[in-house]
């Protein structure tokens, strides 16, 4: 079934709406005094009258619905409130870190899938050979290693003992503009992001390809004299591309999650570290926005991914001939 673009946009907006309601409701149900998140320590020093006035000014005495509407109104104009921990506008804090996360996560994402595709093809082409078996075994092992532990081990080896690579941060002190410093700081986190997801997706692609080379059309292609390599690239890989793109779309939340965890272990100044800290210090304004941003990026990626995958799949373009379906038996 083909879904129209208008419908997709509608689904996107609806999902974002649901997400924002969810996030908002949760943050309001959270324990702790909401005044604290606006005024920080100052709230504790307020008299009851001051508190009442502050509540009124912030609209906290109104119903949740009204509060939500106001919040959305402010949010649209870019005002998400103050961060309790940083005593700063939430957006200001996020801005600087968003780029760091995008570099780590984005490059990691692309690298993961490039390698996964290559590995998948390699394994499917040599199915059941020693090469395939070794890659599968090693892959299974890597997929069983939790991100945080892999990070620890790498830090232990490469920065603590060998002192080759830095084990924390995004750049050396005072070298925020030095590209080489940023690059060396990226290596270990990137390795973890890629390694911990690579096999999961490579295995998926391998299995898709194995399914594909069991199709009857492969026999016909062989019967007309095509070589195995050509069949693999011109038929099978081509046919799994839609599935590949949609796997990429679905994988987004996992990669994002992985990136966040890696950030925390390497204390890499990104969204992940930030959300972890704000959860720890009950900085709900911040956490809310972080959840929302992440959610929107993922949902957007998801929906575009599905759209691309359907657009390049000719089977999706027109409904099949209904001849067979007219008889209820099949």
């Amino acid at each position: 079934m083909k879904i129209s673009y208008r419908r997709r946009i509608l689904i996107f907006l609806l999902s974002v709406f649901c997400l924002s309601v969810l996030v908002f409701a949760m943050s309001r149900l959270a324990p702790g005094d909401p005044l604290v998140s606006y005024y920080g320590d100052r709230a504790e020093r307020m008299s009851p009258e001051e508190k009442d006035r502050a509540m009124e000014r912030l609209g906290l005495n109104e119903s949740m619905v009204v509060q939500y509407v106001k919040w959305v109104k402010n949010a649209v104009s870019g005002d998400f409130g103050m961060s309790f921990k940083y005593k700063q506008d939430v957006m200001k804090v996020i801005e600087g870190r968003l780029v760091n996360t995008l570099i780590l996560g984005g490059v990691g994402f692309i690298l993961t899938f490039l390698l996964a595709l290559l590995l998948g093809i390699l394994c499917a082409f040599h199915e059941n050979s020693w090469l395939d078996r070794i890659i599968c075994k090693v892959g299974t092992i890597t997929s069983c290693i939790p991100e945080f532990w892999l990070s620890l081990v790498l830090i232990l080896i490469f920065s603590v003992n060998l002192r080759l690579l830095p084990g924390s941060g995004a750049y050396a002190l005072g070298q925020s503009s030095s590209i080489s410093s940023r690059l060396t700081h990226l290596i270990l986190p990137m390795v973890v992001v890629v390694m911990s997801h690579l096999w999961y997706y490579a295995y998926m692609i391998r299995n898709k390809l194995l399914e594909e080379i069991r199709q009857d059309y492969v026999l016909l292609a062989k019967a007309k004299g095509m070589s195995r390599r050509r069949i693999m690239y011109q038929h099978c890989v081509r046919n799994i591309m839609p599935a590949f793109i949609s796997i990429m779309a679905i994988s987004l939340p996992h990669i994002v999650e992985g990136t966040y965890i890696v950030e925390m272990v390497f204390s890499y100044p990104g969204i992940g570290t930030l959300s972890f800290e704000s959860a720890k210090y009950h900085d709900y304004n911040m956490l809310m926005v972080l959840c929302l941003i992440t959610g929107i990026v993922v949902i957007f990626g998801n929906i575009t991914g599905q759209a691309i995958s359907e657009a390049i799949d000719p089977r999706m373009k027109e409904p099949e001939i209904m001849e067979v379906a007219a008889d209820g038996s099949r």
Partner: protein
Amino acid sequence: MEADKTFQLVGAGYKDTVVPVERKQHWWTGRPICSMVILGIIILACVGCRFFMTHDPTYMDLASYNLAPNGEFWFGTDTMGRDIFSMILYGGRISLFIGILATVLSTFIAVVYGSISGIAPGWLDEGMMRFTEILLSIPSILIIIFVQALIGKDNILVIAFVIGITSWMSISKIVRTEVRQIRESEYVIASRCMGGGFWHILRVHLLPNFVSSIMFMVVMNVRGAIVAESTLSFLGIGLPIEVISWGSMLSLAEKALMTNSWWMILIPGLFLVITLMCITNIGNYIRKNVNQRQSNM
């Protein structure tokens, strides 16, 4: 005369001509015996930890902290002077318990939710599936952090609960697809024609058929839950350091890194990874049992 006898008409089924074969296969071929044994040993050791522990895992021996593995402390001691070997056994019990409890919870939610969605009319089914997709599109670590921040407590049950209610979505999608498929299969139609009621079909046809297809997911969920617990505890938003689990043991890693105490990171982590691998192998075995057509390449 010999010829006459052998050329006598005797007709069909005169003798059995089937040549008996000896199956050379052993019962264990293809089964992940090694993983099952290792996992069995780990589980047994953890459950019966009080018989194997060499020290009290909670006792902080301030005289002997941060010791490398030696004769007395087989796997060394941590920065608080606790015996790592005893802690692994003791903490493994909690890690495994959380893994199983969380899976039981998520499987329960998934089966109920998925079955309802599978039986429900089109619009409701669509809505329910959209909802799971939205949940799936949020990185689960964020949901966990959020829920965890809301509940504000950190004991074993809460962690298991949080992990459980954030990991049911993919199983429920599979349950729903299976239920839809089985519901439209001819044997269920036939059963309905014979007058089989809802409960009869559920008991005889639906349950036995979809259990096998979600088993793999369930096993993998145990793995996922153990990883989630250790990650959370490591980050310091799961179990506190006093409650020993494989994750909370590793949360001392930062200090360990500073003193280059490799045993504090490598040993508990290895246990964790080996356990996860055994579970994965068993899960893969369950999945592999479906048909294996030969390649056309």
